[in-house]
């Protein structure tokens, strides 16, 4: 089983601060996704990274895929209260029919 370990599990910071959360595995992935899930709702896809070393930006969010394609990070600049939520990394499938395997998530709370 390819496990995705996310750290930290919980993070509470003040609005305006920067933060980084991590997703690690011992396995190599063909792709990796980051999702955000709010309570009582489904995961919402934020980004997919495919190439080792790839960096993608989504406004204040920067996603990086490790060179060896075993790990990834999500950096948020100047966090806002609207960034509060559960951030999940997920192993992308090797084919269209493949299941997604989710990490345990980082629960982020941004204090005003």
């Amino acid at each position: 089983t390819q496990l995705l370990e996310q750290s930290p599990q919980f993070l509470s910071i003040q609005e305006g601060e920067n933060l980084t959360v991590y997703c690690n595995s011992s396995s190599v992935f063909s792709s990796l996704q980051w999702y955000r899930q709010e309570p009582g709702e489904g995961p919402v896809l934020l980004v997919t990274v495919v190439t080792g070393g790839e960096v993608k930006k989504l406004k204040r969010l920067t996603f990086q895929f490790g060179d060896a394609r075993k790990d990834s990070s999500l950096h948020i600049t100047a966090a806002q209260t609207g960034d509060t939520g559960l951030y999940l990394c997920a192993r992308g499938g090797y084919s269209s029919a493949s299941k997604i395997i989710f990490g345990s998530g980082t629960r982020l709370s941004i204090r005003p």
Partner: protein
Amino acid sequence: EPEVTQTPSHQVTQMGQEVILRCVPISNHLYFYWYRQILGQKVEFLVSFYNNEISEKSEIFDDQFSVERPDGSNFTLKIRSTKLEDSAMYFCASSAGQVFADYYEQYFGPGTRLTVT
């Protein structure tokens, strides 16, 4: 923007009853999935479906579960005889075919909260 929809948003049922959870995937997608999330736990894969047959299923997806695409738009998950431990959020997801650039990305619906009493 196209989205996956699910009905009902909340279903309460008694143990032993059958339930059918419904999903309308994104219209040009060809691959369909069900996942579930027990309160406080990870999102877990149940089953994937393509070309009117199951592609892959997890150990959770036993004989009590079945999936169907009864027409061109709906995708359903049936639980024949619900148990207390089936209480969870059930998410439907869909993915485009290989002709699209993002074929390996799955898009999730808002979920159905199933409560078995």
